[in-house]
């Protein structure tokens, strides 16, 4: 695992709660808001299960710690998106809290429903980008969710040992976490 220069992290008292909200203006229409909310809830819970940090959705977008939106092209942060495939999304190191997804992608929450050859799994990218929000940079470990690339129609949502060790060294361990339960899940997902 790798950290951003200076090893930034959310500097709040452990256990901490971070709120997240969805932009009322920058969303996609072909997925329902309830599907997007459910997908992100699942993505946040992956990290929540290993560190003493709770993620709670809020309707108050302006005051959310983590702000999530789908943006197209140049969206004002100096890192423009590029259309279908290429760059899928990006997020900011702590404690900025911005999570941006490229609105041009064919985002999918269920590959049984979305048949496009260029469909990208929303939860996989969400799990990855949340890792950045927490302070993890890209990992050289191919099985890690913090590896930088993700092919179309591939789902990678289970944290690897590398991801877990990286984030736990920043925030400590969730008292309910056991390595065995995590590794069982990892093995079944990546045989």
């Amino acid at each position: 695992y790798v950290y951003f220069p200076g090893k930034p992290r959310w500097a709040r008292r452990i256990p901490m709660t971070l709120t997240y909200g969805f932009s009322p203006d920058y969303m996609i229409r072909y997925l329902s808001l309830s599907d997007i909310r459910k997908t992100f809830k699942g993505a946040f819970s992956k990290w929540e299960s290993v560190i003493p940090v709770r993620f709670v959705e809020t309707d108050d977008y302006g005051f959310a710690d983590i702000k999530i939106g789908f943006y197209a092209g140049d969206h004002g942060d100096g890192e423009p998106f590029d259309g279908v495939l290429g760059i899928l999304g990006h997020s900011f190191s702590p404690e900025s809290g911005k999570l941006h997804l490229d609105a041009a992608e064919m985002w999918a929450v269920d590959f049984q429903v979305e048949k496009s050859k260029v469909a990208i799994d929303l939860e996989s990218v969400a799990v990855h980008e949340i890792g950045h929000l927490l302070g993890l940079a890209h990992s050289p470990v191919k099985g890690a969710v913090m590896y930088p690339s993700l092919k179309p129609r591939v789902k990678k949502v289970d944290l690897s040992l590398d991801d877990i060790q990286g984030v736990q060294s920043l925030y400590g361990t969730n008292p309910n976490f056991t390595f065995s339960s995590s590794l069982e899940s990892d093995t079944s997902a990546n045989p």
Partner: protein
Amino acid sequence: RPEPEFASNQLTETTPSNYYYYYYYHNRFLNSRRGSHVSGLSEIKKYFHYFGYLTSQDYDVSDDMFDAPLESAVIYYQSKLGLQVTGKLDFDTLSQILAPRCGVPDAGSSPALHATKN
């Protein structure tokens, strides 16, 4: 930072034919190495510049020459992403470059994305 041509030239429609053309187009770079001159190689240079592997301000990313700095960038990229270190654009490396990915740089950090909340 200006959008890299490599990225802006990517698909604008989600049709399978475009998808396959995209990969066919980039096959020309396969197995190019130091000393090679391949039309369009500047796109690869811009990719490495964008993701933090070619950082020198003086380096010109607009030509198509596979020079020593590009070789160093390829080696750095391969070692950083757990690929076999060959210094050339072999199949695995080129596949990795073409794969959709996160926009956060791998090496160093983007001033925009590595920001502190004020």
